[in-house]
């Protein structure tokens, strides 16, 4: 590396402190006891599964230490996102339909980023996203095992995916304005990668709890070494 390029890179780092990026990590927990998951018993050879099995509703999936799974965490505004445009990556996440369930239950894409819907079952599913409000939802049948269809939504919102043939089939796709989003794992842990240092409005959105509301909004300062934040969602028994 010659001298001028070293100076150049130093200058770049100095001019753009936001190039130093670290992860915003943490945990989302659930306070209170939600109703037990509803169950759908399935006979053997249904939906391509040779064994009999039980499908459970995934509205509340609570893991270790009350960690809540499948919760969206994203940066709404702040230093590294305000006024910036984010080009959608070429990578396409997969929304699979396997044994009459969507996998995963929740996942995020950047606005304009494509994703692939796959049917891994030997039965017909219809993929219905017509409940979208800010995007044009689609409803199409996928009769063939192994069939793949690509989808893309240009406007940020949370979109419910359903199959009307199997009314329990439900998934949530979060379409985000910037690339700083994550969903919690089985124990409620999340990691929003490569967040430039600065102050942010962080939103935690759990579809079942927050519905048409925005979710929990919290101001978080992300330093050079990242940040760790915990959030608590309350289950209010009616």
């Amino acid at each position: 590396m010659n001298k001028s390029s070293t100076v150049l890179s130093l200058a770049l780092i100095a001019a753009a402190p936001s190039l130093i990026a670290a992860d915003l990590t943490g945990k989302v927990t659930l306070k209170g006891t939600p109703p037990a998951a509803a169950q759908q018993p399935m006979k053997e050879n249904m939906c391509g599964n040779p064994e009999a099995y039980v499908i459970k509703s995934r509205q509340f999936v609570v893991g270790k230490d009350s960690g809540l799974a499948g919760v969206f965490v994203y940066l709404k505004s702040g230093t590294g996102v305000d006024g910036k445009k984010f080009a959608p990556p070429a990578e396409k996440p997969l929304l699979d339909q396997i044994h009459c369930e969507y996998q995963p239950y929740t996942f995020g894409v950047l606005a304009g980023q494509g994703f692939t819907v796959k049917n891994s079952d030997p039965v017909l599913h219809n993929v219905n996203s017509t409940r979208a409000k800010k995007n044009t939802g689609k409803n199409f049948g996928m009769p063939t095992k192994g069939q793949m269809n690509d989808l893309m939504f240009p406007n940020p919102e949370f979109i419910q995916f359903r199959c009307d043939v199997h009314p329990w089939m439900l998934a949530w796709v979060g379409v985000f304005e910037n690339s700083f989003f994550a969903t919690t794992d089985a124990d409620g842990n999340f990691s929003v990668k490569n967040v430039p240092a600065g102050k942010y409005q962080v939103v935690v959105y759990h579809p079942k709890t927050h519905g048409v509301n925005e979710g929990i909004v919290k101001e978080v300062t992300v330093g050079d070494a990242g940040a760790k934040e915990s959030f608590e969602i309350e289950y209010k028994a009616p």
Partner: protein
Amino acid sequence: MATAVSTLFLVCIGGMVTSKGVGMSVPDWPNSYGYNMFLLPWDKWSQGGVFWEHSHRLKGAFVGLLTMGLAISLWFSRVPDVLRKLGLVAFFGVVLQGILGGFRVVFDKHGWGAEFGVIHAAVAQLFFSLVCVIALMTTRRWQLWGDAGSRPSKDSSLRRWAPVLTIVIFMQLIIGASMRHQHAGLAIPDFPLAYGNIWPDTSSAAVAGYNQARVSMISYNDITAGQIILQMVHRLMAYTIAALVTVCWWRTRKTHASGSPLRRFANTWLALILVQVTLGAVTIWTKKAADVATAHMAVGALSLMTGALFSVAAFRLLPVPQSPRIPSSSADVAARTA
């Protein structure tokens, strides 16, 4: 002779409309059809769905043809003018119904499917009642009722009561249909209380809490405060209708001999309403089991139809009400003293 043929046609249509009524639980396809899914082999399912939708359309077309036959045979037979006109109304009604059904499918993409679905359902109810009224008016009995000598009672208040009550029932059916078409499941899960209260809390925090608790295998839409209020209105109207039909029944009982036509209609009407209220409660208690909900809708259609028949029978059988007038003219005074 023509009357007999028409009646035969009418019975056919009645049967078709009834089965159409049963079919009404399916046009929600593919949404509410999921209930009965399991009875069908999986690989046949796509054919099953197509079959239902297609057969509903075929039935609709068949009812359309029958209605056309009915309208034509009424037009060319020696029946009162009013029957001819009703035949025409039925014919245009069935055409409108077909168009509405098509709109429902077409506009579904644009988010108007539920609205057209409700109108489609409302017209179906009206059509069913209309066909039954025509059927009644083509019977021999109807002719006999026309004889002034057979006036069973001088009390004409039922002429006013019955139609008003029938209209209220129709409004109740529209509310019921719009609840069905929202696909929100039960907006209020308990009965006779509502979320444990006489009147539920509909603040946004409370509604968010209700939705949080709706953990279910069926991916229902979230409920809104408006849907909860609609459900409460449906319940209050149910109590009101039950009370008013009871009053109507009591009134008929007091002014008509047992076995008289209006007494029979009143008995049937009250029985249907009581069954209907029970079915409504059971719909909630069974968490909207598909068969109970469908029965609730069918008995609703029968209640409307009985109300309509009661009304036209009251018009036929009871004297025109003498509106109480202040005797201002000498003619009035003369009429009174005469």
